[in-house]
């Protein structure tokens, strides 16, 4: 069985390009060109140079000793939080900006939840001198204020999305509307492995650097490039897909994807998509999404803006349905506690998104031998407000 995209743009039952005709020319242009451009030597050269000199890659694979003692396994953290701009998101925006340039685009749009993807997009636009408009839910603008300020300083225009739950899903709607209205000179940098084909595949390819490096680093540090488990949080699923990518076809490596359980999966305030969702179409692809019987999208809830999304990428839906990946969830409380634990045991303040992946370690049992890699997708600077309020600091 293949876990990757077929020539029609599908992962098993999921994927495709469910877009109105207005978006067809842009998406088709991408579909016809993305692999050609990415595989081109000059692209690869420029991409890897920037990842090294500008982003600061490779990101370290850090054996967290005290955490390892606590959980009785070798817990490795893949330090995407140390990337320039503070999260894995920049791997994708570097790739997409180089691609947009090669397609002759002059204007960049993006959606953002936590603001990490917005910052990463505003950053590469500043780097290359392109106009940048970022759509962000009104609720998220409030809870991620530091990132809004960064985007503005970087020269991006931040446009509030005021419809629906005023979070990531609504920001994505607004970005798609912008693209419909600007069909010629604009490229839409989607921030996760969602959207119409070829976005899920393209974003996964750019994020696959995470597992590519992890394999090398594990081999150097342990003599074995096969971990027993890899864990990552899932909003749309881009850091998870990057973490899984080079392990997907190696069935000995267990893939664990941690969704945002919110106040509890059955509380009515949750973003645990695989638990609560059904198959359907959102934002251009067929996947699993939280919806009513009538096919209306249900408003999700998570303390973490980056995971506050009612869907997951189509490749994740496929990994879930085939049983290749294990999809689980932790609550708001559990992840905030895990964030504090990492801070006080290892001196690393994680993004609340990443803290979801860490929180699941509590629920696993180990024998002391296992090698476990957790994708630490981002740093917690943007979340200080939430942490301070929650812990009364």
């Amino acid at each position, binding site marked *: 069985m293949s876990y990757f995209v077929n020539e*029609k743009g599908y992962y098993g039952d999921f994927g495709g390009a*469910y877009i*109105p*005709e207005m978006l067809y020319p842009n998406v088709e242009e991408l579909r016809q060109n993305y692999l050609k451009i990415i595989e081109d030597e000059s692209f690869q050269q420029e991409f890897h140079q920037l990842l090294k000199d500008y982003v600061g890659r490779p990101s370290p694979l850090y054996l967290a000793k005290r955490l390892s003692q606590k959980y009785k396994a070798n817990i490795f953290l893949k330090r995407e939080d140390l990337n320039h701009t503070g999260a894995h998101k920049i791997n994708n925006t570097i790739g997409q900006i180089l691609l947009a340039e090669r397609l002759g685009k002059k204007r960049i749009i993006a959606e953002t939840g936590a603001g990490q993807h917005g910052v990463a997009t505003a950053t590469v636009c500043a780097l290359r001198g392109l106009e940048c408009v970022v759509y962000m839910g009104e609720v998220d603008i409030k809870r991620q204020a530091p990132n809004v300020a960064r985007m503005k300083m970087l020269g991006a225009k931040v446009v509030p999305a005021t419809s629906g739950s005023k979070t990531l899903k609504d920001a994505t*709607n607004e970005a798609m509307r912008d693209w419909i209205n600007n*069909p010629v000179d604009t490229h839409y940098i989607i921030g996760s492995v969602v959207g119409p084909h070829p976005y899920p595949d393209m974003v996964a390819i750019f994020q696959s650097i995470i597992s590519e490096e992890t394999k090398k680093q594990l081999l150097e540090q342990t003599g074995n490039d096969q971990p027993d488990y890899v864990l990552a949080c899932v909003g749309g699923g881009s850091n998870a897909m990057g973490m899984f990518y080079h392990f997907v076809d190696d069935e000995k490596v267990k893939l664990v994807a941690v969704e945002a359980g919110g106040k509890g999966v059955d509380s009515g305030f949750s973003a645990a998509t695989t638990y609560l969702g059904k198959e359907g179409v959102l934002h251009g692809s067929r996947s699993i999404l939280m919806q009513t019987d009538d*096919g209306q999208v249900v408003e999700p809830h998570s303390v973490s803006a980056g995971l506050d999304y009612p869907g997951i990428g189509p490749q994740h839906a496929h990994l879930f349905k085939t049983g290749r990946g294990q999809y689980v969830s932790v609550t708001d409380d559990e992840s905030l506690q895990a964030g504090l634990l990492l801070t006080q045991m290892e001196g690393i303040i994680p993004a609340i998104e990443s803290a979801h992946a860490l929180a699941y370690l509590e629920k696993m049992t180990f024998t002391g031998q296992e090698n476990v890699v957790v994708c630490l997708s981002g740093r917690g600077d943007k979340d200080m407000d939430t942490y301070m309020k929650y812990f009364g600091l």
Partner: protein
Amino acid sequence: MSRIKTLFQEKKNILSIYFTAGYPELNDTVRIAEALEKSGADLLEIGFPYSDPVADGPVIQASSKQSLDQGMDLKLLFEQLKSLREKVSIPVLLMGYVNPMLQFGVENFCNACVEVGVDGCIVPDLPMVEYEEFYQDIFESRGLSNIFLVTPQTSPERIRKIDGLSNGFIYLLSSSATTGQSLQVSENTESYFARIADLKLNNPLMIGFGINSKETFDKACQYANGGIIGSAFVKALEPADLEGSIQRFMLKFKS
């Protein structure tokens, strides 16, 4: 012959009106359809609302949201439409997004359309390849039309393909835009309309998106079989004087 085919054979300057089901009041759907036919509409597009209407501007976003908040869903809509054909004789299409239709089941959806006398649908985010592979037979075996959109960026080859798959009319977008913006007829728009007219397609053409005045409607009629009005109509609806507001709106286009 189907109601749609007959309409295009018998009439010119066809005026088609879009409105959202269940708006302004939940039970206004058939009432609006009836009033529109009385005031001279030739064709109706009844929108079934969706929570995330990415191709729509603020007016239709708001009407969709209000309709959903009031309790509209596809089951209720088909229930309401049971009385449609007692009151309305012009062709009627349903317009909406693919996900509600998928959850209802495409086959169930098409059966329900036939039962209540709906003539076809417009589903902008249902891709042509999916339609051809999975749904074309379901539609055509029931005599339902599926209407495709064309924009100024659609290539001539793709337009020909769309023409081949269409059996009603082709929905020509005045520009690539979300609904509700005013049609700016520039030289580019005119040359695009003329370019499409020159293709001599098998299906009739209707121009939509941004038609909000007699002037823009006449422009549409100059290049196509007629025009489609959506946001401008939805905006004009007055809950306190529904029939009156519909009549006044339609008068502007019938003079």
